[in-house]
């Protein structure tokens, strides 16, 4: 009788361990915001930023950074898609047949993107109109596929979830910084508000900076300027963070 109890409790213990292993890929139970886990969140913001260090996901950084609002919504949409696709792939990581794993990942990402698109259309119609085709293009965002291949396939569920959030935040923060400068310098607005004053047909009728003859920089509205701003960001980041500079 006593023996039986110990055997089931051992079994239970083993099951528990397996569960922990499945969730976080470390044998020991870890605090849910331990140093390692925090690193998963903070690393992509600076040292391992997907845009400025890995130079991934540039295409959408060009396309939707003309104004701040769509950039913020895009960042949120990418966060949702990335966190959940990382999680789902990690849950299925021992089940996914190796030969079709890329297709499986694509289908998971694509269906999450379609879900996000449908929800936006139903609950945030105006924003979804502004983002139009770019929500669909999240599917082709190489950061997502990259994280699935590089991280979620070999790591626990919780860690993959954190990794997804971290990388999406690293992507989003660059998007928002670029959009801030492009909207401010290109149309003199932030989130659609005229922060630099109102530009009327003549200088005399204008207010704020425009009354001194300030002009918006139309170049800022064109895609190449996003690349130039990203370039400047990379420069600033490397000036601050010397270990990012290649030694050759």
């Amino acid at each position, binding site marked *: 009788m006593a023996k039986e109890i110990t055997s089931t409790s051992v079994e239970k213990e083993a099951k528990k361990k397996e569960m922990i292993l499945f969730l976080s890929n470390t044998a020991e139970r870890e605090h849910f915001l331990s140093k390692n886990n925090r690193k998963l969140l903070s690393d992509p913001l600076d040292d391992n930023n997907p845009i400025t260090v890995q130079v991934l996901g540039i295409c959408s950084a060009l396309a939707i950074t003309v104004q701040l609002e769509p950039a913020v919504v895009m960042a949120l949409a990418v966060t949702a898609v990335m966190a959940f696709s990382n999680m789902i792939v990690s849950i299925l990581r021992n089940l996914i*047949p190796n*030969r079709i794993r890329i297709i499986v990942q694509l289908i998971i990402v694509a269906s999450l993107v379609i879900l996000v698109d449908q929800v936006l259309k139903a609950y945030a119609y105006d924003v979804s109109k502004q983002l139009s085709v770019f929500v669909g293009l999240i599917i082709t965002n190489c950061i997502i596929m990259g994280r699935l291949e590089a991280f979620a396939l070999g790591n626990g569920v919780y860690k993959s979830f954190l990794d997804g959030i971290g990388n999406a935040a690293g992507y989003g923060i660059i998007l928002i910084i670029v959009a801030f400068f492009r909207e401010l310098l290109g149309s003199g607005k932030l989130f659609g508000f005229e922060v630099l004053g109102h530009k009327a047909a003549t200088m005399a009728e204008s207010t704020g900076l425009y009354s001194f003859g300030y002009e918006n920089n139309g170049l800022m509205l064109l895609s190449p300027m996003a690349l130039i701003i990203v370039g400047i960001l990379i420069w600033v980041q490397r000036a601050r963070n010397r270990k990012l500079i290649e030694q050759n």
Partner: protein
Amino acid sequence: MEEKAVNKTNSNGYTFMFAIIMVVVVGSVLAFAATSLQPLQNENVRQEKMQNILATVGIEVDRAGSEELYNQYITETIALNSDGSVNEQADAFTVDLAKELKRPAPNQVFPLYIADIEGEKYYIVPLRGKGLWDAIWGYIALKDDVNTIKGAVFDHKAETPGLGAEITQVWFRERFTDEKIFDESGNLIGVSVVKGSPDPTDKSDFKVDAISGATITGDGVSDMISERLQHYLPYFKTQQEIKVAIQ
């Protein structure tokens, strides 16, 4: 143990089964989401249309409040055949102009919305044309002489943000207000979007100022206005109360 697991997921049978199950699961989740969200999405599109129609006659409402005011001010919606006669079968509000324009010309049906605001009658004509990248559309409201523009709204599918996409902005739309569309002998001219700052106070020059950097979108707007309006001339001619000589 490990090797066995790898072998299992590598077999053809397992791969096929996995693919089939995944497609079925993903397919049903998406189908469920699409059908359950569809009523909300259609409602958004419908309310936005009412909002746009009201905006042409100077009534700015948010999307949620548009239906009530629409029912209050839009007194008639009629569908017109290409010869100007009224088509009794078609429901004008649900006519999709994009689809109509793909049909053979004699079969096309065009909607016309008639608003009555404090005794003033307005004719609202839906527009559709081509911008730089994709379709542009909108509504234009004419006063009861069908010569003077009361207001216009424009929208687009994929014009460049900050350039062509600015046609949706109020400051661009306002340039059309009070412009005339017929010349003195009753020929339809329409309104052209032109470069070089035409005098904004001259309301019978058939010109409004363009947006710099959006020449092709602007040309699309001009073409769309004159092209669409000409289809309504047969109907306007039959209306006794319209007092403008239309050639």
